[in-house]
C-alpha cells in the first residue's frame, strides 16, 4: 500500500455477523485488499483502499461481525477496540459504515444506537434490500435516516447495487465532517437498564420505519403464546414429554423387526456353521453384542426426528429463550443453551460449541456440566433397563409409564447440570450472571429434505460406530470372556473362569454396595470407551453365561430374571452421572488446555454416580423390603 494510501482517511465497516459486510467490502475495494491477523489473536484483519467519485482515496477496514460493542468473544473484542481506538497499532477510524441486513433490521438497530453513542461520523448501509423487498418487508429509508439522524443507503452488495450511492455519501461525509471528527472517543459499557432502553428504542424505530410482512405477524402471534411465561413453559414441557412418549411407542415395531432379524441371523449361523471358536465369536460376540446396540437405532432416530423438526420450525431458539431464566438462575450464561442442547446428541460437539462463551469461568462451567446432559449414547442403556424393569403400563390411560421414566431420567440430568453449575458459579466462583440477547428466527415449515438428511446423518454416525468401535470392542470382550476356558469338571458357566470373569469378580466388591454384580462390572470397563458399548458387553457376557436354551434370546428378559429392581434403578442412577466416555475427557483436555479440568470432571462425576447409585440402591431395597 502506498504512503498516500496510508495517510488517507480510514473508514471501518461494522455490522452483525452474516449481514453481507465482507461482500460490501469486496464490492467497494475490489482487488485492493490486504489480509493479515490482528496481533496476538487469530482474528483476521482485512484492509483495502477505495477511490470516491471525487477522487479521494479512503482506507477501508472490514471488522469482525458483532451484535454489540460489549464484545464477548475475541472477534467482538477486536471490533470494539478498533471502533474505540483502543487497539495497539490500529488508528481510530475517521468514520464508520454500519452494514445492516435489511431482512433483520431489529437485530442491528441496537448496534447502530451503540455506535451513535461513540460520536463518530456514521453511515448505515442497508444491505440485502432486494431480499427484504422480496419477503414483503418495506422500509421507509428517509424516515429511518431521520429517526437515526444518520445517512442511510440501500445496497445489494453481492451485485454491487447501491455502491455508487454509498461512495457519494462517503464524499459528502468527507466534505462535511471527516476532517473535523474528534481525535478520541469516550464509551462505557451500558448497564442492564440501558440495554433494555436501547431495545425499546430499537423497537420504536422499527415500528415507525418498517412494515412487517405476514410471516412476521404470524411469528409475533405465535410467540405471544409460545414465549408466554406460563403457557410457553407448559407447552415446552408438553413438547418434551410427548417426544419421550413417542420414543417408546413409535419405535417399538421397528425395534421388534431389527431384533427378530438379528435373532434369525444368530440361529442361521448357529445352524450352518460347525461348532467352534469362530461360531462362538460370530454368535455370542458379534451378533449378540452388536445386535443389542443396533436394535436401539429406531429410538435414536425418533428422538432426532423431533429435535430436527423443532429446530427447523424455529422452536429451539424459543426453548433457549424460555430456559434462559432457569439457566441464569443456575449461574449459566444464556449462550450456554446451545452447547447444552448439542450435548443431548453428544457431549463432544456440545463442549466444542462452548467456545462461543467468552468469559472463561462461564465457559468452564458449561464444559463441566455438558456431560450431564443425556447424550444419545445413554439411550440404549436407559431403554434396555426401562424395557426390562418398567412395565409397559399406561398412566391415566394415555401416558406410557416407560416414557415417563425416560422423561424423568432426562429431567434429572438437566437438574443435576443446573445444580452443579449453580454450586460452581454461585458458591465457588461467586460470579454474577450476565444479560443475554439472542436472535429469534421467524417460524418456518420444516423442509422434508433437511429432515431426511439430518436423520440419515444420525443413522450413519450410529451405524458407523456400531460397525467399527463397538464391533472391535465386542470381539475383544468375546476373547476376554472366553479365555481361559473352564477347567475340567467345572459346574459354573465358562465365563466365570475367563479373564473378564476374573476382572469382574475382582472389581465387584467395590461395586457391591451399589448393588452391581460382576457382569455389570465387566460391562462398565469397555463402557468407558463409549457408553452404549456397555449394552453390547452385557449382551456378550450374558450370551456366554447362558446355558443352551437361553442362547439367542433377548437381553431384557435375562436381565429382568437375574437383576433385582434396586440394582436396575441403581444402574440408571449411575448412568445419569458416570463419566463413562474417554473421548469426552480428551475433548475437555483439549478445550481447557489442561489435565486439571478433565481430572476434576472425572472425579466429580464418578463421585456423583457412586453416591446416586448407592442412595438409589439402598432406598429402593428399603422401600421394596
Amino acid at each position, binding site marked *: 500500500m502506498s504512503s498516500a494510501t496510508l495517510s488517507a482517511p480510514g473508514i471501518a465497516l461494522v455490522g452483525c455477523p452474516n449481514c453481507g459486510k465482507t461482500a460490501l467490502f469486496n464490492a467497494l475495494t475490489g482487488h485492493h485488499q490486504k489480509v493479515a491477523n490482528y496481533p496476538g489473536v487469530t482474528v483476521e484483519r482485512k484492509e483495502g483502499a477505495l477511490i470516491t467519485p471525487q477522487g479521494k482515496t479512503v482506507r477501508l477496514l472490514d471488522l469482525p461481525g458483532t451484535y454489540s460493542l460489549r464484545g464477548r468473544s475475541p472477534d467482538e473484542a477486536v471490533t470494539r477496540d478498533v471502533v474505540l481506538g483502543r487497539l495497539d497499532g490500529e488508528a481510530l477510524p475517521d468514520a464508520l459504515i454500519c452494514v445492516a441486513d435489511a431482512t433483520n433490521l431489529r437485530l442491528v438497530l441496537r448496534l447502530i444506537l451503540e455506535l451513535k453513542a461513540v460520536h463518530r461520523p456514521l453511515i448505515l448501509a442497508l444491505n440485502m434490500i432486494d431480499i427484504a423487498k422480496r419477503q414483503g418487508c418495506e422500509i421507509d429509508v428517509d424516515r429511518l435516516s431521520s429517526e437515526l439522524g444518520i445517512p442511510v443507503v440501500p445496497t445489494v452488495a453481492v451485485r454491487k447495487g447501491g455502491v455508487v450511492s454509498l461512495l457519494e455519501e462517503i464524499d459528502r461525509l468527507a466534505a462535511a465532517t471527516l476532517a473535523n471528527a474528534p481525535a478520541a472517543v469516550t464509551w462505557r459499557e451500558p448497564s442492564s437498564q440501558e440495554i433494555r432502553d436501547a431495545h425499546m428504542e430499537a423497537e420504536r424505530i422499527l415500528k415507525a420505519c418498517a412494515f412487517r410482512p405476514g410471516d412476521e405477524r404470524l411469528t409475533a402471534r405465535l410467540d405471544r403464546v409460545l414465549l408466554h411465561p406460563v403457557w410457553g413453559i407448559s407447552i415446552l414441557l408438553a413438547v418434551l414429554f410427548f417426544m419421550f412418549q413417542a420414543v417408546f411407542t413409535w419405535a417399538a415395531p421397528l425395534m421388534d423387526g431389527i431384533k427378530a432379524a438379528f435373532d434369525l441371523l444368530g440361529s442361521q449361523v448357529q445352524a450352518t456353521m460347525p461348532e467352534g471358536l469362530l*461360531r462362538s465369536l460370530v454368535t455370542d460376540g458379534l451378533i449378540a453384542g452388536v445386535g443389542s446396540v443396533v436394535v436401539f437405532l429406531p429410538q435414536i432416530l425418533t428422538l432426532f426426528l423431533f429435535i430436527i423438526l423443532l429446530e427447523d420450525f424455529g422452536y429451539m431458539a424459543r426453548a433457549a429463550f424460555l430456559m434462559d431464566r432457569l439457566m441464569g438462575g443456575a449461574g449459566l450464561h444464556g449462550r450456554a443453551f446451545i452447547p447444552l442442547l448439542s450435548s443431548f446428541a453428544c457431549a463432544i460437539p456440545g463442549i466444542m460449541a462452548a467456545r462461543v462463551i467468552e468469559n472463561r469461568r462461564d465457559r468452564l462451567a458449561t464444559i463441566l456440566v455438558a456431560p450431564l446432559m443425556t*447424550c444419545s449414547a445413554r439411550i440404549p442403556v436407559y431403554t434396555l433397563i426401562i424395557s426390562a424393569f418398567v412395565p409397559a403400563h399406561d398412566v391415566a390411560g394415555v401416558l406410557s409409564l416407560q416414557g415417563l421414566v425416560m422423561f424423568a431420567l432426562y429431567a434429572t440430568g438437566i437438574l443435576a447440570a443446573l445444580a452443579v453449575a449453580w454450586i460452581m458459579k454461585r458458591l465457588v466462583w461467586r460470579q454474577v450472571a450476565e444479560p443475554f440477547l439472542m436472535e429469534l428466527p421467524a417460524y418456518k415449515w420444516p423442509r422434508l429434505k433437511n429432515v431426511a438428511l439430518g436423520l440419515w446423518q444420525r443413522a450413519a454416525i450410529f451405524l458407523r460406530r456400531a460397525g467399527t468401535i463397538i464391533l472391535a*470392542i465386542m470381539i475383544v470382550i468375546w476373547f476376554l470372556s472366553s479365555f481361559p476356558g473352564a477347567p475340567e469338571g467345572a459346574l459354573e458357566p465358562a465365563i466365570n473362569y475367563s479373564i473378564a470373569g476374573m476382572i469382574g469378580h475382582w472389581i465387584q466388591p467395590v461395586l457391591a454396595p451399589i448393588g452391581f454384580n460382576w457382569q455389570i462390572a465387566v460391562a462398565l470397563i469397555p463402557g468407558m470407551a463409549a457408553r452404549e458399548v456397555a449394552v453390547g458387553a452385557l449382551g456378550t457376557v450374558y450370551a456366554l453365561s447362558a446355558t443352551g436354551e437361553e442362547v439367542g434370546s433377548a437381553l431384557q428378559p435375562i436381565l429382568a430374571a437375574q437383576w433385582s429392581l434396586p440394582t436396575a434403578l441403581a444402574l440408571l442412577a449411575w448412568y445419569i452421572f458416570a463419566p463413562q466416555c474417554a473421548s469426552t475427557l480428551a475433548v475437555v483436555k483439549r478445550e481447557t488446555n489442561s489435565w486439571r479440568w478433565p481430572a476434576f470432571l472425572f472425579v466429580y462425576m464418578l463421585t456423583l454416580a457412586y453416591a446416586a447409585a448407592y442412595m438409589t440402591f439402598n432406598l429402593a431395597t428399603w422401600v421394596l423390603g
Partner: protein
Amino acid sequence: MTQGFVALALVVAAAGWLGWRAIPNRLRRKLTGGKGGCGPGCGCGD
C-alpha cells in the same frame, strides 16, 4: 483349528485397531502424515 486361527486373527486385528485409535490424535496425525480422527466413543461424526 481353522476356526481358532480365524478367530484369533480377528481378535488381534480388533485389539490392534483399538490400540491404534487410542493413540492421541496429534501423535497419530504425526505418524500418518496428516490423517486422524476423534478416537473411540466420539459421536461427533469426525
